[in-house]
């Protein structure tokens, strides 16, 4: 049986009231959802609370999932992303990066990053081994604007393809690519600055 069919059966069992099926869904997707929440929210506590909220929402709206409209994993990720956006709007804790790219993130057709600041410096040696380095990257990720952050999280951490991300974010594929490019470049700049400060 294919994955899609297994999931469809699992959902049907779950909707029929089988508790074991719901437990299986939770066990299968909690890791993915927790990781998205952690990378977006920044702290383990917030990630845990948000993951729980996501599953509550999934539990309540599972009946609305239509397997013909897309994969279950995409639907779950969409629910997660929408909840994260709501959380961001409510709390306003997220600080918009004092990014040179911030204007462009508001207007998708603005000049690309490379044209705004021609920085000829070489990026730092991108060898991340230690935990400290991972924490630095995670901290830099929190400084990205939400639009760029979610795009790079979905692409580089969750390995979703551009079409899926475009469907999830409800923006054209070209916009997704542009956001991913800018997000990556912005992250490299932030890390370059941190690296200079540390050294």
């Amino acid at each position: 049986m294919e994955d899609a069919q297994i999931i469809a059966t699992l959902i049907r069992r779950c909707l029929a009231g089988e508790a074991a099926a719901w437990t299986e869904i939770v066990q299968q997707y909690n890791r993915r959802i927790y990781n998205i929440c952690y990378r977006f929210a920044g702290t383990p506590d917030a990630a845990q609370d948000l993951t729980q909220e996501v599953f509550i929402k999934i539990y309540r709206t599972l009946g609305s999932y239509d397997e013909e409209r897309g994969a279950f994993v995409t639907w779950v990720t969409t629910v997660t992303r929408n909840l994260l956006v709501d959380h961001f709007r409510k709390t306003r804790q997220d600080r918009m990066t004092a990014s040179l790219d911030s204007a462009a993130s508001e207007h998708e057709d603005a000049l690309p990053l490379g044209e705004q600041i021609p920085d000829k410096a070489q990026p730092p040696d991108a060898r991340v081994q230690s935990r400290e380095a991972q924490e630095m990257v995670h901290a830099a990720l929190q400084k990205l604007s939400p639009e760029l952050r979610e795009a790079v999280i979905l692409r580089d951490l969750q390995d979703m393809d551009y079409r899926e991300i475009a469907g999830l974010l409800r923006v054209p594929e070209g916009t997704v690519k542009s956001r991913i490019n800018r997000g990556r470049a912005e992250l490299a700049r932030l890390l370059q600055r941190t690296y200079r400060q540390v050294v």
Partner: protein
Amino acid sequence: MGAETKNGMPCHEFEALLSEALDHKLSGAKLEEFQTHGAHCELCGPLLQEAAAGQHWLKSLAEVEPPADLVAGILAATTGVYSAQGVQAARAKGSLWERFSAEVLKPLMTPVLGLVRQPRFAMSFGMAFFSLSVTLNVAGVKLSSLRNIDLRPSSIRHTYYETSGKIAKYYDNMRFVYEIESRLREFKQVAEPEPSEQKKPVKAPEKNHSGQPDSNQHNYSRGGSETVLALSNQTQAVITGRQGRSL
């Protein structure tokens, strides 16, 4: 950059192909054009490098481990009951200490900590701790010198006898000292003559009606070799030196 064309490829096309190039999805002539443009364009070159570095940093981020009690918490929040499987999975993930702290310590300590965290109680506990530490300091008790071995019953008994012996010895010594002191006082009283026999009659000082200070108080009027030791109650200086003692 948008409309600029270098090496056969406009910059906007370079940017559109950037993500595909980083995903290694470009090939053939398109890839060559892309690489040539990136190598020669002073705006697109750095962008390519930064995007590649950023992608590398992001890919290097490891997946984080969810908390052990996450599944159990979700199941409790959704279905209202803890799933045996979920709890078992959570148990299997956590270490012995984690399980002990989650199942035993946390339920016990949470209400206590909640109480202690209130500002009024926190202040009281702080003061109590301060008082205790001051008392221990005054009593000469050092917590750093306390060892596990000191808490054995035999050690406690030994310490008790040792301390009580020291106290008894201290009071014995005190009694001996007081006894000696009282004996000495007795000897002194016996040896000293009566005060009336020892005292010489003191000549009453003449009254000074001039309003000027007494001439014998003018130390500076005396010779430099005379040393003034003190002033008596009768405002007479005790002087040693050539003139001897004058009262």
